């Protein structure tokens, strides 16, 4: 009776599913029915009746096979794709607005970055202290925000590095290499050219970014990646502690 049922299931599954999935479904159903039959035998029910009742409780083979096939055919929502697209979009936003943002309001720029970092750390702390894992959304938002902001920081540095500095005070003002430059007219001209270049970079960061070419973008991505990885590592320790704690409690089994 059991074998006949499984044979029917295999036939129905074979019509609806690929061979591997069909075989897995039959194997899983066999295990299910054997457990069900065993439970009835332990209650003292005679074998033939136990088999019949177990199959009856399971239901029709065709319904199970078609149900699994319908689920297999359902389009899967690609959450990962959406997260990656959001991360990429925020990275581009960081690249475009980062230099302007930093120039206009460095305090606000670092405040937003600090908030993103706090979100990442919050996940680590919550994961360590809480019995249940903190929502992944906290971590996702934090990491995506730091990715975008690090993208802005990375390209800001690159924009102004070529021109000797950041903000209002270019590097060469404090550098011994340029000491005494003001004494000669050529030196003053060179300084004025560099100041003009810094002003141009600060006034049109996107234009200068494009002028530097793909290597600028590549380095900006590397800086963004390193910065985000460092931030992610801060919460990684909390995640690890939480995982170890769950394992020690036996895989999270709760009444």
């Amino acid at each position, binding site marked *: 009776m059991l074998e006949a049922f499984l044979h029917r299931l295999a036939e129905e599954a074979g019509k609806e599913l690929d061979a591997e999935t069909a075989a*897995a*479904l039959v*194997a*899983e*159903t*066999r*295990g*299910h029915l*054997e*457990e*069900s039959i065993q*439970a009835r035998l332990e209650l003292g029910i005679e074998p033939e009746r136990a088999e019949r009742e177990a199959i009856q*409780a*399971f*239901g*029709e*083979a065709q*319904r*199970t096979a078609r*149900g*699994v096939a*319908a*689920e*297999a055919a*359902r389009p*899967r*929502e690609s*959450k990962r794709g959406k997260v990656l697209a959001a991360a990429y979009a925020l990275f581009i936003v960081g690249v475009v607005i980062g230099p302007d943002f930093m120039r206009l309001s460095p305090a606000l720029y670092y405040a937003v970055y600090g908030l993103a970092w706090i979100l990442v750390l919050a996940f680590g702390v919550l994961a360590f202290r809480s019995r*249940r*894992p903190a*929502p*992944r959304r906290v971590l996702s938002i934090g990491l995506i925000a730091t990715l975008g902001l690090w993208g802005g920081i990375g390209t800001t540095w690159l924009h102004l590095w070529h021109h000797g500095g950041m903000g209002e005070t270019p590097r060469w003002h404090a550098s011994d290499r340029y000491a005494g430059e003001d004494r000669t007219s050529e030196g003053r001209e060179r300084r004025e050219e560099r100041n003009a270049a810094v002003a141009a970079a600060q006034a049109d960061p996107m234009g200068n970014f494009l002028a530097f070419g793909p290597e600028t973008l590549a380095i900006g991505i590397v800086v963004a990646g390193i910065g985000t990885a460092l931030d992610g590592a801060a919460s990684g320790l909390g995640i690890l502690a939480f995982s170890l704690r769950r394992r020690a409690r036996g*895989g*999270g*089994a*709760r*009444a």
Partner: protein
Amino acid sequence: MLGALDGGAAHGYEIARRIKATSEDALAVGEGLLYPALHALERDGLVAAEWVPQEGKPNRKVYRLTDEGRGALAKKRKEWLRFAEGVSAVLKPGVSGA
């Protein structure tokens, strides 16, 4: 099913048994219908499954809640409690319009 797995990892028959026992037989669906639902939950990332070897028997597929599954369960619990409270309030004797 997510609620049944909240008690720990289980294979299909055990999940059916937990649902039936916890609901005191109020919820007793065809056990075979669990598998399409389990496959759907697995595809959506709410449960994870692995084949566990057994001594002297074929391997058994065991399901467990993922972190996303726990989040979804918590959300559904909240929604259900809110819904149940609303229905109970409306069905209470003496409520005008009921």
